[in-house]
């Protein structure tokens, strides 16, 4: 017979903080001063993060050209992780859609469609390299590409 699950209540293991410090910790985590300090930290790192995103875009372009899809996925995955924090939210959204597409295809053992790949690579490249976020129209492009990926994956699922 299967052993029933054992539940270990929080009182029976060491908490992150002792009870008498929890109130102060929560106040610090929710204070506007802490959030302002964190925003400054992120702002100081934006330029370095943008540089890293551009390097990854170059790598992703090369991997897609050579058809190395796992490496292309890895680069797009890094882009989606960094871009939003670097103030490149549309770039991150488009990279996220590209990752969903490649992940589904790779798991199904299918080859990515060259046109869909090229559309995403172009959109990510332009979005990441344009200085003015509002000039990119990136969110509209991200929406269109997400719809395209959803349609194509639905077609694949339905045979």
């Amino acid at each position: 017979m299967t052993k029933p699950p054992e539940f270990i209540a929080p009182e029976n293991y060491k908490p992150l903080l002792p009870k008498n410090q929890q109130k102060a910790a929560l106040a610090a985590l929710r204070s506007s001063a802490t959030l302002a300090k964190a925003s400054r930290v992120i702002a100081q790192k934006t330029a370095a993060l943008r540089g890293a995103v551009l390097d990854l875009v170059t790598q992703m372009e090369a991997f897609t050209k050579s058809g190395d899809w796992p490496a292309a996925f890895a680069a797009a995955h890094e882009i989606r992780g960094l871009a939003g924090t670097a103030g490149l939210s549309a770039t991150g959204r488009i990279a996220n859609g590209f990752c969903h597409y490649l992940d589904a295809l790779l798991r199904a053992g299918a080859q990515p469609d060259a046109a869909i790949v090229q559309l995403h690579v172009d959109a990510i490249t332009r979005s990441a390299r344009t200085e003015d976020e509002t000039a990119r129209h990136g969110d509209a492009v991200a929406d269109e590409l997400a719809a395209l990926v959803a349609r194509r994956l639905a077609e694949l699922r339905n045979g």
Partner: protein
Amino acid sequence: MSGGAFEHLKALIVEDNPHMRELLCSLLRAIGITAVHEATDGDGAFRLMRETQPDLILTDLSMTPVDGLAFVREVRHSSDSPNPYIPIIMVTGHTERHRIEAARDAGVTEVLAKPIAASNLFQRIAEIVQRPRSFVKCAGYFGPDRRRQSGGGYTGPYRRREDSDDIAIR
């Protein structure tokens, strides 16, 4: 302001991207955690964990040679683990459902999706402080209770074969 409550905590960041590692480190310092140790994959992280005995772990999912899932399993299950109950926040850009489920089933405490927003990271830490979760030990799983709701309002009927009164609570 910040600092007092967190200044004696030690954190371990496991992340292969140096920019992300630095960012997470700075955000933890912003709330007053000064002892922040860093590793670039799961293998190095487990060794560092044994040396430094952290109180909180932030880990990425995709890393080589040992990824975040294998690291979390080692923390939760290994007889060498210094603290199988340690809170683990998985910070990942993977938003695919199957990967999030894999993280949950490995035993992570919280998942934080990239891109990182400071408010979201602090909210996950607040959740760990304010609502620590019970741990569950059963065949095939050890980690925080995967159910977020207690189900306390449910009055039945209890039709599952495994519904039983003799759940062990200690």
